[in-house]
C-alpha cells in the first residue's frame, strides 16, 4: 500500500478530529510557516516538490501559484465539485481528515496571500459540506483561521459555497462564474490568476492537491518526490477503484503505481470477471485494454500511451460488459451535462450519442465508424476541455474495441444482450 500521507490514520466510520490530526503533526506546517516563512518560500517549495494538480489537468501547482496577479483581495477556491464520473476521492478525503484539507487550504492561501477562500462543493456532498462547515468553526476557534492567524498579520477565512450541480462547474473559469451568480460557462478570455473571482487574482485548486501541501512543507519537497514510483512523478495519489472488482474504494498509493497493483489492492477482479478494459482516470479518459495492465498510473506514463491520468478514478469493466453500451452511457452523461456554450459540445456530442445509440440498438452502419472517428477528433477543437474529455472514451472504444462495434453492426444487435 505504501506510505499514507493523505489518508493517514483513516478510520472506517468517522473523520479524524482536530486533536487526532494534531497528534500526528497536524497544523505543525501551518505554525512553522505563517509569519515565519514568506509566501514566496512556500511557493518555491511546492514548485520544487513537483506537485501536480489532482483535479484532472495535472498542471504543476507551484507554477500556477507563481502566476498570481498583483491585485488584492486574492481568492483561493478549493474545488470539491468532483463531478467526474467514477471519482469520489475528495469525498473520502474530506471524510477521513477534514483538518488536513483545511490546513492545506490555509497554507496555500498563505502562499498566494489570499484573503478569502471559497470551498466549492457539489450538492450531492451536502453531508460533507456540513462536515467542513463544522470543522471550519473548530479550526477558527483554534486560531488557525480568521483574523491574524496564529498571531501573525495573515488573515484568511473560508466559506462553503454549495453548488447546485452540473459537471461544467468543475472547470475553473466556469466555477468562478458560478460563484459570482452568473451562468457557469467557461471563459478563456480572462486570466483567472489576474482577473478571476470578482475581477481579482484567483487560484482554483482541487482539494486533493491542496491537501498535499502540509506534508510537503513538513517533510520537504525531496521526500514528496521520493514517494512516487514513476520517474518524474511526485507524491501519493488517491485512486478510486470501482466496477468489477472485489473491494471497490479509494486507495492512497504512490504516484506511478502500476495499474495491476492498484487492481490487486482493490481485491482483484470480482469472481467470474475477467479484465476487459479500464478507464484510468474518470469518464473523460480513454478505455484501455488489458495489455496496458502494467501502465504506471501517473501523468507522464499515461500521456505516453495517448491517455490521461485524469482524476485517477479507475473504472474496471469485465468481459460481460458491452463497451458500446458503456460509451453510450458516458455520452448520455456528457450530452446532458454540456453547458451548451460552444457548438461541438452542444451539438456534436448528441450526434455522437445518436450514432452510439443506433449501434447499440443494432441499427448501426459501417459508415458510422469513420464519422465517429472524425467527430471525436474534432471535439478537441471545442472551447474547453469538456468535449475532448467526452470524446476520449469514444476514441478508446474506436481504437481498441472496433471489433466489438463491428459485431454490433454485423449481428444487428448488441452481442451482450440476452447473455
Amino acid at each position, binding site marked *: 500500500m505504501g506510505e499514507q500521507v493523505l489518508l493517514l490514520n483513516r478510520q472506517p466510520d468517522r473523520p479524524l478530529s482536530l486533536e487526532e490530526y494534531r497528534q500526528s503533526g497536524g497544523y505543525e506546517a501551518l505554525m512553522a510557516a505563517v509569519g515565519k516563512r514568506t509566501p514566496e518560500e512556500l511557493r518555491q517549495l511546492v514548485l520544487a516538490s513537483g506537485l501536480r494538480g489532482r483535479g484532472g489537468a495535472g498542471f504543476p501547482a507551484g507554477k500556477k501559484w507563481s502566476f498570481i496577479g498583483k491585485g488584492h483581495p486574492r481568492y483561493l477556491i478549493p474545488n470539491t465539485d468532483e463531478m467526474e464520473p467514477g471519482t469520489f476521492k475528495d469525498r473520502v478525503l474530506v471524510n477521513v481528515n477534514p483538518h488536513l484539507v483545511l490546513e492545506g487550504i490555509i497554507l496555500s492561501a498563505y502562499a498566494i496571500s489570499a484573503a478569502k477562500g471559497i470551498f466549492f462543493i457539489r450538492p450531492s456532498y451536502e453531508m460533507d459540506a456540513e462536515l467542513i462547515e463544522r470543522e471550519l468553526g473548530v479550526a477558527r476557534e483554534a486560531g488557525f483561521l480568521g483574523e491574524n492567524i496564529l498571531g501573525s498579520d495573515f488573515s484568511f477565512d473560508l466559506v462553503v459555497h454549495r453548488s447546485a450541480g452540473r459537471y461544467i462547474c468543475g472547470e475553473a473559469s466556469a466555477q468562478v462564474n458560478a460563484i459570482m451568480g452568473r451562468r457557469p460557462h467557461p471563459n478563456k478570455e480572462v486570466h483567472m490568476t489576474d482577473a478571476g473571482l470578482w475581477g481579482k487574482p484567483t487560484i482554483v485548486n482541487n482539494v486533493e492537491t491542496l491537501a498535499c501541501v502540509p506534508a510537503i512543507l513538513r517533510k520537504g519537497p525531496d521526500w514528496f518526490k521520493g514517494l512516487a514510483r514513476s520517474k518524474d512523478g511526485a507524491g501519493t495519489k488517491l485512486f478510486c477503484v470501482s466496477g468489477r472488482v472485489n473491494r471497490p474504494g479509494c486507495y492512497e498509493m504512490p504516484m506511478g503505481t502500476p495499474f495491476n497493483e492498484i487492481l490487486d489492492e482493490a481485491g482483484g477482479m470480482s469472481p467470474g470477471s475477467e479484465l476487459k478494459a479500464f478507464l484510468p482516470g474518470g469518464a473523460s479518459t480513454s478505455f484501455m485494454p488489458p495489455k496496458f495492465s502494467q501502465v504506471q498510473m501517473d501523468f507522464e506514463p499515461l500521456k505516453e500511451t495517448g491517455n490521461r491520468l485524469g482524476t485517477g478514478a479507475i473504472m474496471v469493466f469485465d468481459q460481460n460488459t458491452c463497451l458500446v453500451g458503456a460509451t453510450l452511457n458516458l455520452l448520455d452523461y456528457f450530452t446532458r451535462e*454540456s453547458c*451548451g456554450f*460552444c457548438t*461541438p459540445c*452542444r451539438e456534436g456530442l448528441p450526434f455522437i450519442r445518436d450514432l452510439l445509440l443506433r449501434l447499440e440498438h443494432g441499427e448501426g452502419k459501417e459508415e458510422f465508424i469513420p*464519422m465517429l472517428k472524425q467527430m471525436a477528433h474534432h471535439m478537441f*477543437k471545442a*472551447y474547453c476541455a469538456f468535449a475532448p474529455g467526452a470524446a476520449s472514451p469514444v476514441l478508446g472504444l474506436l481504437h481498441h474495441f472496433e471489433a466489438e462495434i463491428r459485431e454490433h453492426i454485423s449481428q444487428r444487435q448488441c452481442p451482450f444482450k440476452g447473455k
Partner: protein
Amino acid sequence: MPTLRIDQREISVPQGTKVIEAAEKLGIMIPRFCYHPALGSLGACRMCAVKFMEGPVKGVEMSCMVEAADGMVVSTTDPEAMEFRRYVIEWLMLNHPHDCPICDAGGQCLLQDETVSGGHGLRRYQGLKRTFEDQYLGEFVQHEMNRCIHCWRCRRFYQEFAGYFDYGAMQIGNRMYFGRFAPGPLESPFAGNIIDLCPTGVLTDKPSRYKGRRWDLQRGPSLCLHCSLGCNLVGSARYREMIRVEARFHGAVNGYFICDRGRYGFAYANHPDRPRQARVGEEAAPLDQALKTAAQRLGQIRERYGPGAVAAWGSTRSSLETLGMLQWLCQDQGWRGPQFFPQASLARRVKAAVARLDTGMAVSLRDLENADFIVVAGADPVQEAPMLALALRQAARRGATVAVIDPRPVFLPLEYEHLPVSPGDIDLCLNLLSQAARSEEAATGKLEPDAARFYGLLTSTNLEDPLLQERLLALGRKLQDCLRPVIVCNTDMVRETTPARAADQARLLQADKGQAGLFYLLPGPNAYGAALLAGREEVDLLAAMEQGGVKALVVVENDPLGSCPDQERLLRALDNLELLVGLDYLPSATAARSQIFLPTTTVFEKEFSHFINQEGRLQQAVPLHQGGTPIIQVGQGSHPPRTFLDAIPGGEPRPGAGILADLAAALSGEPAPPTAGDLWDYLSGEHEGFSQLASLTASALGEGVHLLPAEAQEPAWSPEPGEKPPEPPAGQLELLLVDQTFGTEELGSYAAPLQKVEEEPHLLLHTDLAADLGLAPGEQVALLLPGGEVTVRLQTAQNMAPGVAIMPRHRRLHWQKTGDGPVWLPPENIKKLSEPL
C-alpha cells in the same frame, strides 16, 4: 504592426487585431456566427476555424480568438480546417427546422450562406430534432426558437452591450433557450437590433413579417429622422409600401445599431390617411393646378398687402433642400420668415448651441464612447435620443463616470449618478462641478487668461440640498483625474442660458485638460441646418399673425397646431389669415386646416435629400422608390389591383423643395429658380457654416461631410457665467414638457407599430409633493394651465427634482396650453378628478 500571411497574401495590421479581422481586410470572409465586430470575439460557434501553419500558434484554431502576430502563416482552405467547419455547420443544422420557405430570414440568412459555403449538403443525422415553444416578445420581434443555433449574439447585445436584463439564455446544453422569463414585450428600446444580429430566423422583424424576400425589396441607404442624431439606415420598400428599416453601419454616428423608434418610426410613410392629393378648399385638384392657384392667391395677397403679409413656417424635419428653397423663396419674394421652430425660445436655444460648435469641441457618438467622464446636463437620453444612451453605456463599460444633471427621473441602462435638480439649477451645478474639479490656484495658474477670467467669474452659491451639493463635489473631485471629459446638453427643456453655459464649461475643461468634448441634442433631424439658415434674426410669426400683419401663411412640412405650445393663441392667429397654404406628407391638423394643400414626399421617395445632424454632419438619404399609395391600400388587401391607370395611384406628391421651386417660378414668372446644384451654391453663400457645400462632389455628399467650422461662430465665453436664470415664484411648480421614447416624437407618432408600444401619458410629480397635495399615483388629475385644462393620469417618482411637474408632449394628450418659456404653476392648479383605476 504585426505582419502575417493569410492564404498566401501578406498583410500588416495594428497590434491587437484578430486574425478574422485581418483576413477581412484582405477581403477574405472567414465564416462566423458568434463573432461580430461590435460585440467582439466569443469563441462559441467554432465556425471561424482556420489552420495556423507557421508562427507562434499551430494547428486548427479559431481565427476570432487569435491575435495576429508576426510570422503567422494562416490557411483558411486547409483540409483539416475545412472538414472541421463542415462538421460545425452540420452540427448547427442538426436541429434547425429547414423551414426556409416560410422563414423571413430566407435569402438574408447567414446560416444559409455558411451552410452552402461550408459544404454541408447531405443530412446524416437521423435523430429527432429538439423543439421549443416560442414566446411573444412584443410588437417588434418575432420569436421562432426552433431555428436557433445558439450563437449568443442576441444575449450579448441585449445584456452586455445594451444593458437590459429581461432577455437572455435559459436551460443548458442543446436545450438552451433564448427568451424572456415569461412571454411579454422586450423592455429594451434597442431590442430591434437583435433582429439584425440574429444570423438566422429566430428573431425576425414582426411588422414586416411575410411581406417579401430581400431580393423583392427596393432597398437603399437612408437616414433616421426620429431625433437629431442622424443614425444611418437601410430602408426597404415593396409594392409602394415602406416595409422595413435596418441599421446601416456608420463608424462615427450609430455604429451597427439603431433604436426601436428609428427602426419602426418609418411607418408614417404608409399612414392610411396620408394626404397624397393636392387640394384647393375642399376639392381635390391636380398638383400643378393647386400650385398655380396657390401662386395666384399668394400673389394677390402680396399685391394687396405688400410682401411682408406672406409668411413661411417650416420645421426641422425637412431636408436641407426644402429648408434652403424655403429660405430662398422668402428672400426672393420678400416674405416674412421663414421660421423653423415652433417657438422663439427654442430657436434661441438651438442657435446658441449650434453657434458654439466647432471642430475642436464637437464630438461624435463614437467619440463619446471613449470619454472617461460624461456630464449629461438637461437631457434624458433614453427618452429623447435613445442611441445616445447606448453610447453612454459603452463609455461606462470602458470605465467612464456618467453624471446626469436633470430634473426628470432619468433612467439609463448603465451605472450613473443622477442629480435631480430643477432646470434653473443646472447652470449652477455645472459651475460647482467645474470648481470642484480644479482648485482656484491651479485654475488661475495653469489656464490661459480668458479661461482663467471665466473661471474667476463662476459663482459659488451652494445648492439648496446639501446632500446633492456633496455628491456634486464628489463628482467634481472625480473629474479632476479624468482626461477626456464630455458635456452632453439638450436644448429642449433647459433654460436659455444652459446650452451656452455647457459650451463654456466644456471649453474650460479643454483649457484645463487639453481635451474635452461638447455634445448637444437638438430638436429634430435637421435642426442644425435650420439653425444656420435662421441666422441671428428673430422671427416670431405667431406675434406677427396676431398683430394682423400676416395675411397668408405657407406652412412647409410642419404642424404648428401640434407643436406650438399655445394652441388657443395659434388658432386665433390663424383665424386672422386670409390664406393658409400647407405642404406636407403627414395627415396633420395643420394640413387638414390648409385652404390649399400640396402633398410632399417622405425621405424615402423620389429624390435624394440631405440632413445635418446635431454635430454638424451632413448626410444623404437615397430615394428607395417612387412612392404612391401602397398596393395593399389601393387594393384593400386584394392583389393585383383591379383598376388600371397610366399613373401611379397616390404618386403625385413631390419633394418639398421641388414644389417650392415651382411655386417660386409661378410667383415670379421666371422659369428658373435655383435647381439642386445651384441650391448648394446658394446655401454656401447664405451662411459660413455652409461654405463647404458649393465645392462638394456627388460622392462626398453620398458619404456625408462634417460641416463644422474650425472656430465656433460665437465668442468662447459667455460674458456673465454667474448670472442666475429666472426662478419660479416661491411655492410654485415649474411645468416641464418633455419627450418620451415613444408617443411624443412627431413622425413616429403617426407610425402604427410605435403607437402600439407607446406608454400612456402621465403627469409626473415627486412622491412627497403628491402626498402633500393629497394625490395618489393612478388618479386622474386636472391640470389648470394658462391655455386651459389638461386631464391626465398621475404618476409619482422619488428620483426627480421636487419642484417640478413633468408632462410628455404626448400625441394623446392635449398639452398645447402652456405658452412659450418656463411655465410656473401654483400646486393648487393640480386637482384630483377620480380615484385610481
